[in-house]
């Protein structure tokens, strides 16, 4: 009897053991597999390098350099002490300091700890040679952004920083993870998907003391694709040297295609500050009231002032309200309604060409009043104002052009003739970005075609300019364009022209200055023009924030053209 009972007990124990085994292997198998992998598998990431950003000639504007980090696999205390003793003389860091860094970076036994970042190539080679004596030391290569020209074209390019929560929620579906480094602003942000690298890695098996046992797998890192821009480094440099020390923006474009050849905005910043993660200086930049991260060329909206006048002239000529023989007498001011609208000078009798050359306000008050605000608005729209130009940069603003209906709806006010007068000289509610003005000027340079500015020429060697290039004929009579262009040429060539400073530089420039009043301080200075007059190759827009006068902007433009001539770029 007692034997039989014992028999049952034995069977019960075996069943119990079998069930426990099933529980352990099947029901908890996943958990233990993870733990087992964690025990013996270490992942060492190998960063690929982010795609380069090139200029139109294939010269590098932004690249990547490889940095070498020393990574240590956590092991037993004794073998780590031995490792650190070996590392210390090579790295030139005391063992105490190494221990300290290790403790600071340590999270759990399965995660390798970086103890020295960005060591020199010589040290990396030295460590690689002594690898056998140094248990658990891995040299991890990592690509860092490299800016050979410092802050050059920084607004076009943007900078790199750790992904923020807002972007992460947007981009999580595209494989972005927390702590990813992503582009912020400019091409880096817009083309991040192409530029970003895919990190590879090494999975290594280690034994119970964390010593390297063998390599299990290796996925080579994938470098990002190179993005080639339409920017010309030489022009960009010229533009930036000319703009140096001033606040504002300058854009240079090919008037026939819309290729942006140079684009700068001041004050600017040094994107390499983000590479070194110097938080203090970056913090200063963000707090700077001059807003260095603000790309004035596309995000800044300013009243255009007199540079708006070619649109008014085109509207007047096209609608037939004025013609070439129309002339208005400028007595220094015009009374519209009950208000005196001043001209900046007393120009006497002015026809269209003269009025453009001298930037006579009275002529344009009258033209504008003759045409009417709605037509002015419509022509502004035709010249590409009120909407973003569509350049491949984030955060582009659309500018603003008023009209009577808008005023009625949003301001509950009647549109007065005074508003029309202000509108006609690009003041009042009118807001434009420097890029929009540049594009508007291009219409006169290319004989009536509205181009779409674009920046990206090719991605990964594949030419995309055809798909970016969008040129819309404006259907404005050739005569209208030619006559306004003549006026624009007179602006420079006429002895009394507002941009006469550009007259004798060995190049026929046409253009228009503008001085726009604004409530915040000194007037803004504008100059937009193209050169050479006969066969335009470049259209330019210089905007000086609180630059006091359009003359100052013309001086900057002169410097740009002179430098271009010096370097034989014209």
């Amino acid at each position, binding site marked *: 009897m007692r034997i039989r009972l014992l028999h049952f007990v034995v069977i019960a124990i*075996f069943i119990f*053991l079998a069930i426990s085994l099933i529980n352990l*292997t099947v029901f908890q198998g996943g958990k233990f597999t993870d733990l087992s992998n964690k025990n013996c598998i270490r992942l060492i990431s190998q960063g690929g390098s982010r795609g380069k950003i090139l200029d139109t000639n294939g010269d590098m504007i932004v690249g990547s350099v490889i940095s070498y980090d020393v990574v240590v696999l956590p092991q037993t205390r004794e073998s780590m002490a031995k490792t650190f003793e070996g590392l210390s003389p090579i790295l030139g860091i005391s063992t105490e300091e190494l221990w300290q860094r290790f403790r600071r970076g340590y999270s759990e036994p399965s995660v390798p700890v970086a103890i020295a970042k960005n060591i020199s190539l010589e040290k990396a080679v030295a460590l690689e040679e002594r690898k056998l004596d140094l248990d658990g030391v891995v040299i991890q290569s990592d690509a860092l952004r490299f800016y050979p020209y410092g802050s050059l074209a920084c607004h076009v390019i943007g900078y790199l920083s750790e992904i923020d929560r807002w972007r992460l929620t947007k981009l999580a579906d595209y494989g972005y993870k927390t702590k990813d480094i992503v582009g912020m602003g400019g091409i880096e942000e817009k083309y991040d998907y192409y530029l970003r690298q895919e990190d590879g890695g090494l999975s290594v098996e280690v034994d119970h003391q964390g010593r390297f046992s063998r390599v299990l797998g290796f996925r080579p890192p994938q470098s990002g694709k190179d993005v080639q821009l339409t920017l010309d480094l030489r022009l960009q440099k010229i533009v930036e040297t000319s703009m140096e020390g001033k606040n504002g923006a300058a854009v240079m474009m090919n008037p026939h295609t819309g290729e942006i050849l140079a684009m700068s905005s001041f004050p600017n910043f040094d994107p390499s500050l983000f590479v070194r993660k110097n938080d203090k200086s970056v913090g200063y930049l963000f707090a700077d009231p001059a807003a260095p991260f603000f790309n004035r060329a596309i995000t800044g909206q300013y009243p255009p002032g007199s540079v708006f006048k070619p649109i008014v002239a085109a509207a007047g000529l096209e609608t037939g309200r004025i013609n070439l023989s129309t002339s208005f007498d400028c007595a220094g001011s015009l009374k519209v309604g009950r208000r005196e609208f001043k001209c900046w000078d007393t120009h006497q009798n002015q026809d269209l060409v003269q009025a453009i050359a001298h930037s006579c306000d009275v002529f344009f008050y009258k033209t504008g009043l003759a045409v009417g605000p709605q037509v002015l608005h419509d022509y502004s729209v035709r010249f590409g104002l009120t909407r973003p130009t569509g350049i491949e940069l984030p955060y582009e603003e659309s500018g603003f052009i008023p009209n009577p209906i808008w005023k009625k709806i949003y301001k509950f006010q009647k549109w007065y003739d005074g508003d029309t007068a202000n509108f006609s000289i690009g003041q009042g509610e009118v807001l434009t970005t420097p890029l929009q003005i540049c594009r508007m000027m291009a219409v006169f340079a290319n004989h009536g075609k509205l181009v779409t500015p674009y920046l990206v020429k090719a991605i990964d060697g594949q030419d995309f300019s055809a798909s970016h290039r969008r040129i819309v004929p404006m259907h404005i009579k050739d005569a209208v364009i030619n006559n306004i262009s003549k006026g624009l040429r007179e602006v420079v060539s006429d002895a009394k022209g507002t941009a006469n400073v550009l007259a004798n530089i060995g190049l026929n420039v046409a253009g228009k200055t503008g001085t726009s009043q604004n409530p915040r301080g000194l007037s803004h200075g504008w100059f937009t023009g193209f050169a050479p007059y006969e066969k335009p190759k470049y259209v330019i827009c210089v905007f000086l924030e609180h630059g006091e006068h359009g003359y100052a902007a013309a001086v900057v433009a002169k410097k740009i053209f002179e430098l271009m001539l010096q370097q034989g770029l014209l």
Partner: protein
Amino acid sequence: MNTTFKILIAALLIAVIGIMSIYSSASRKEGELWETLCQRQIIWVIIGLLAFWFFSNFNYRWLWDWTYFIYGIVIFLLLLVFILGIVRLGAQRWLKLMWFNFQPSETAKLITILFLAKYFSRKSVDDVALKASKFGLWRALILPFIFVGIPMFLIIEQPDLGSGAIVFLIFFIMLYLSNVKLRFIIIFLAILGLLIPLGWNFLRDYQRDRIMVFLNPNIDPLGAGYTVIQSKIAIGSGGFFGKGWLSGTQSQLKFLPESHTDFIFATFSEEWGLLGGVVLMGLYFFIIFQGIRTAQRTRDHYGSLLALGITLMFCIQACVNIAMTMGLAPVVGLPLPLMSYGGSSVLVTFIGLGIVANVSKTRAVF
């Protein structure tokens, strides 16, 4: 097919599985010891097979006559361990004999069974029934306990709590099986229950740690709890089919200590998964089942008790070891019979199984 053959085949299969696991466990470890490990085990298994053949082929009654003599020798060896024993892993358990180390505590387990079987199977002259059911307290409990207690004490002092506990458990089960009055056993258990808190004070620190860790392995994950945690990881990560022979990371990369001795079940399970584990447990159960059947069929009380005692010793060691690797029992230094690396254990187990086979063969004689 006769019982001898069945037991032999099953035991040989387990031994082969054991050799494979030892080979795997040692395959990626360097050093002379690891390289020769497998060969030594093979030699021991061969010696064990010879011993099996020898012990299954003479009349086991011979053991009856020599019991006290063998008992004396074992006590002598156990005492010798204290003088000449090799200290390894903090315990003095081994005697060095020529080219191998011998662990007398293994033989002590067997001699306890031999002794108790003889002691309890004495019959009264006029009756076929066992005398034990009529024994008084002194003869049923205290006297045999003194005889068992001497080797047990010596083993525990080595220290080898696991083997000591096994000897004690065997004693208790033999009492039960030899029809000693149930109330004596209950009294015995009651006294024992009262002594447990006292016994705590006699335990060594590491033994206390092991018991605390058994109750909660996460108290000390890198110290005393480490082995159990790693063992559970090894078994669990094996999954259903296992990682494959020679591919167990836990044992090969030394995360699992004692992967070729006490924790060989974890090594095996990691590589062969649930499937292998169940097959192995089936093989153990098969041997135990054969042993119990032999005991049931044998009319000779001495033979029956002998077969039962040996089978249960085998069973307890296997079950406690497997339970221990799965974290279901405290870590005690018990080998998995036939599988764990260790000559003494393999040899003694084969001898024991040989005796069981012997009993099953000769049962017809009486």
